[in-house]
C-alpha cells in the first residue's frame, strides 16, 4: 500500500461539464503525478508537481489543469469534459530518497458521455 487515495474511483459525467479528480497521499512525498492509461497508448503523463504550488505539464496536458495547495493533495481538473477524456486516471507519488521509485494509486475510471 503506497498511501495513495484517489477519489472518486468511478464517475460518469456529461460532455461539457467540469470534473475534478482528487489524489491524497499520506507519505509526505514531494513529487506527485497524474497519468492517463488508454489501450494502445499505455501510460501517459498529464501533469506533475514537484512541490506545493509547483506544477509542470506532461505530454498530454491539453484540456487539463492541476493544483497543489497542500503537500498531501493533488487535484486534476477537466475544465470542460470531452469524450476523448474517457479514460482511467492514475495518481502517482515519488521521493528522491526512495530511489526515485514512483508508486501508483488504484485509479479513477472516468466516462464522459
Amino acid at each position, binding site marked *: 500500500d*503506497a498511501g495513495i487515495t484517489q477519489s472518486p474511483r468511478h464517475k460518469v459525467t456529461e460532455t461539457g461539464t467540469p470534473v475534478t479528480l482528487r489524489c491524497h497521499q499520506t507519505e509526505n512525498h514531494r*513529487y506527485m*503525478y497524474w497519468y492517463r492509461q488508454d489501450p*494502445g497508448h*499505455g*501510460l*501517459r*503523463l498529464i501533469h*506533475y508537481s*514537484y512541490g506545493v504550488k509547483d506544477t509542470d505539464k*506532461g505530454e498530454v496536458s491539453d484540456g487539463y489543469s492541476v493544483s497543489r495547495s497542500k503537500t498531501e493533495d493533488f487535484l486534476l481538473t477537466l475544465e470542460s469534459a470531452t469524450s476523448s477524456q474517457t479514460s482511467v486516471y*492514475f495518481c502517482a507519488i*515519488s521521493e528522491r530518497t526512495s*530511489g*526515485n*521509485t*514512483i*508508486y*501508483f*494509486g*488504484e*485509479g479513477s475510471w472516468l466516462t464522459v458521455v
Partner: protein
Amino acid sequence: EDQVTQSPEALRLQEGESSSLNCSYTVSGLRGLFWYRQDPGKGPEFLFTLYSAGEEKEKERLKATLTKKESFLHITAPKPEDSATYLCAVLPMGAQKLVFGQGTRLTINP
C-alpha cells in the same frame, strides 16, 4: 527522444514454463529502469528498480536484469497468479518523469 519498447505484446505460457520479457530502451542517460506489474482494474504495482548495467534483482519467481540497451524480466516456473501485464519504464538522467513502454500481457495457463 527517449523511448521504451516492450516485447512481446502478449505471451501465453503453460504453468511451469519459464520465459523472458524484453524491454529495449533509448535514453540520453539512464537514471533508473523500473518494472511494474498491473492486474486488471488495478494500478501498477512496483516490482524492481535497476540502476546500472549488470545489475540483477530477484523476487520470488521473477528476476530482472539490465544491460546498456535493454532489460529482461525472467519468470521461472510461473504460476497462474503471475498472469498480469508487466510494464517497463525508464527515468532519464536529469528528469523526474518516467517514460513507459506499452507493456507485455502475460497469461499463465494451469
